[in-house]
């Protein structure tokens, strides 16, 4: 058994035998011809261009209705390249001047184009190199003949393993049999990722040399949620995953009907369910799962892969992508929450003794103003195009909030002077994730438009527990009375101050806490997008009245074990009624 980590680009879990696509390209049989034959080669080339064009038009006529716009775009690009006379002239010149065979000339020119694409600074362009290889293969297929038929004759469900899938390969996929994808190369915006997501099959990319590791017929687990694949899993792992996969499928079907229904309690209170996201594509999942917006847009991903600090444009692009997906739905962007990671530590010669109490999050931003201003500019510019809110993390005092707001005001002034559009009234919020912030919530409430309670950090800082440290992890308890009292205090304060308050920690994703949170007064929860239907199911089966009674009872209890038993009992009752 071997587990390989890559990037999960399309969620879901599947266990299937592998089909390994030939990593090797078409072998060119002959490179040169006698000069007397060059005219014939030019004829063959023209024929291949015509046939390839005809094939694409035919493919679009036959299947175009099934494709979404991105796939259509990909094929439009192919057609434009095939109709590019300058490109064809370059190939023709190689045939007539160097007596190359048509296939060799195609290969030389297309590879040169692809190489120049892949060297482009722009990631979008560089990833389009796979389009060019795809066009090359399409032409070669017409020149040399069919060879790659494996995928058209499938009779059983498989996971496709390949170096990097081309748009033609993925568009020809039979959804009935192709259940997952694993590739050596690729990124979040590569075609494999886009197509896999639009087909709804799990995919993991950037797995290194996975095509060399896997033999055809090996059993493969593709875990698109965790971004891992398992090659030839042992029985225990297999059983666990099969159960997991079956549960996912079964439950997803059950919950599908929830997606269209409103999140309203039995006594008519509407609850707003938002998604926590990191990558722009997760916005699509949020919508697909019936989310009402983005309650927490983490922006650290922009820094983690990058060798250099992301530019204002990188930020702006990512936000714009998300806005384009979400339309008028609200998007709360959290300013970057870096700390104790590669980006900040590499520039820090002496490691911090206690990074969680160190220079992280808003503290790091306030000491690195140019980085902070860059992001704020991008957020403000994006705010002209959608319903954007800005949120500062790890605030511990009023002065810190004021400093952050001062930077925001200053950047706004710059934009105004430059005549750049932004939302002047962009709502400003703080994350309440330290006991200090919770205890000065009244003061903070006067100067912000909303609170978002980050329970993960709030619990860690309140209980002084690192939950990743297994020796003390059992002390990490969301139902500790100290934690619940702080949360309750923040909700009361927000309601009195008439500002919005949401909860965006993991507590919002776990059904046993949902009734308690509604009872405490929350009407906005922000959680992992795939979980939204599950939480909605609970929301729709309780009344706020009943939840309030539960919350009062829980808050009067002395220990976390009593409270968690109470919540579990309540959940059993709710689920029994259903």
């Amino acid at each position, binding site marked *: 058994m071997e587990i390989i980590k890559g990037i999960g680009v399309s969620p879901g879990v599947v266990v299937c035998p592998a089909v390994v696509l030939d990593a090797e390209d078409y072998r060119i049989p002959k490179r040169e011809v006698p000069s007397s034959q060059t005219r014939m080669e030019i004829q063959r080339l023209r024929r291949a261009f015509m046939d390839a064009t005809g094939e694409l038009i035919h493919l679009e006529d036959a299947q175009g209705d099934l494709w979404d716009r991105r796939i259509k775009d990909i094929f*439009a690009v192919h057609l*434009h390249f095939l109709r590019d*006379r*300058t490109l064809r002239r370059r190939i023709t010149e190689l045939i007539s001047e160097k007596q190359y065979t048509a296939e060799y000339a195609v290969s030389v020119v297309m590879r040169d*184009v692809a190489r120049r694409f892949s060297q*482009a*600074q*722009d990631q979008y*362009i560089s990833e389009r190199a796979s389009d060019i290889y795809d066009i090359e293969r399409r032409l070669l297929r017409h020149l040399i003949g069919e060879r790659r038929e494996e995928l058209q004759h499938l009779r059983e469900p498989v996971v496709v393993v390949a170096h990097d899938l081309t748009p033609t390969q993925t568009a020809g996929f039979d959804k009935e049999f192709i259940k997952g994808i694993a590739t050596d190369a690729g990124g979040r915006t590569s075609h494999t990722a886009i197509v896999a997501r639009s087909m709804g099959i799990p995919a993991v990319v950037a797995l290194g040399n996975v095509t060399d590791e896997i033999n055809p017929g090996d059993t493969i687990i593709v875990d698109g949620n965790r971004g891992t694949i398992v090659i030839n899993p042992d029985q225990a792992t297999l059983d666990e995953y099969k159960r997991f996969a079956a549960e996912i499928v079964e439950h997803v079907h059950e919950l599908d009907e929830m997606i269209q229904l409103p999140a309203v309690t039995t006594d008519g209170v509407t609850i707003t369910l938002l998604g926590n996201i990191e990558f722009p594509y997760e916005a699509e999942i949020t919508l697909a799962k019936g989310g009402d917006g983005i309650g927490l847009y983490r922006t650290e991903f922009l820094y983690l892969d990058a060798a250099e600090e992301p530019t204002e*444009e990188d930020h702006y692009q990512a936000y714009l992508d998300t806005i384009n997906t979400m339309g008028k739905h609200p998007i709360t962007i959290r300013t970057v929450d870096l700390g104790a990671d590669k980006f900040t530590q590499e520039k820090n010669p002496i490691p911090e003794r206690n990074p969680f109490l160190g220079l992280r999050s808003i503290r790091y931003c306030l000491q690195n103003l140019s980085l902070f201003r860059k992001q704020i500019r991008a957020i403000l510019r994006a705010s002209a195009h959608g319903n954007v809110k800005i949120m500062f993390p790890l605030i511990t005092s009023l002065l810190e909030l004021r400093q952050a707001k001062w930077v925001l005001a200053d950047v706004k002034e710059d934009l105004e002077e430059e005549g750049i559009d932004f939302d002047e009234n962009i709502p400003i919020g703080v994350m309440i994730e330290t006991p200090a912030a919770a205890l000065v919530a009244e003061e903070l409430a006067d100067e912000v438009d909303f609170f978002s309670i980050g329970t993960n950090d709030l619990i860690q800082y309140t209980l002084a527990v690192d939950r990743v440290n297994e020796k003390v992890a059992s002390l990490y308890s969301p139902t500790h009375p100290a934690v619940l009292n702080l949360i309750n205090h923040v909700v009361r304060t927000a309601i009195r101050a008439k500002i919005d308050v949401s909860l965006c920690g993991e507590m919002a994703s776990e059904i046993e806490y949902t009734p308690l949170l509604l009872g405490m007064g929350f009407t906005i929860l922000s959680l992992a997008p795939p979980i939204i239907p599950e939480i909605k199911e609970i929301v729709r089966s309780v009344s706020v009245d009943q939840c309030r009674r539960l919350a009062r009872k829980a808050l009067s209890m002395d220990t976390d074990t009593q409270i968690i038993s109470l919540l579990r009992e309540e959940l059993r009752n709710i689920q029994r009624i259903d």
Partner: protein
Amino acid sequence: MQVPPAQNCNSAERIVVIRNEEGLHMRPAMQFIDCANGFESQITIHKGDQRANGKSIAELTMLAAGKGTQLRICAVGNDAAQAIEALAEIIENEITKNTD
């Protein structure tokens, strides 16, 4: 491939700046090519010292012209003036409208 000094035919040129967010990527480039191919004039795009045939998607996309890039569009031929007008309109207005 030096363009001979214009004598018998018209020539026109215009400097434009890419304003749409994704730059002159595939979709806008296709729009540009489709328009350019509707004219008989020769169209050349200059980005700094790089040059591309304005009717070739391969050459145009290889310029990798992102937002803010300044391009010089040159047209030589009978309909040069109309071509420049239409192409500049695409770069400056059309493609900024349908970014998504």
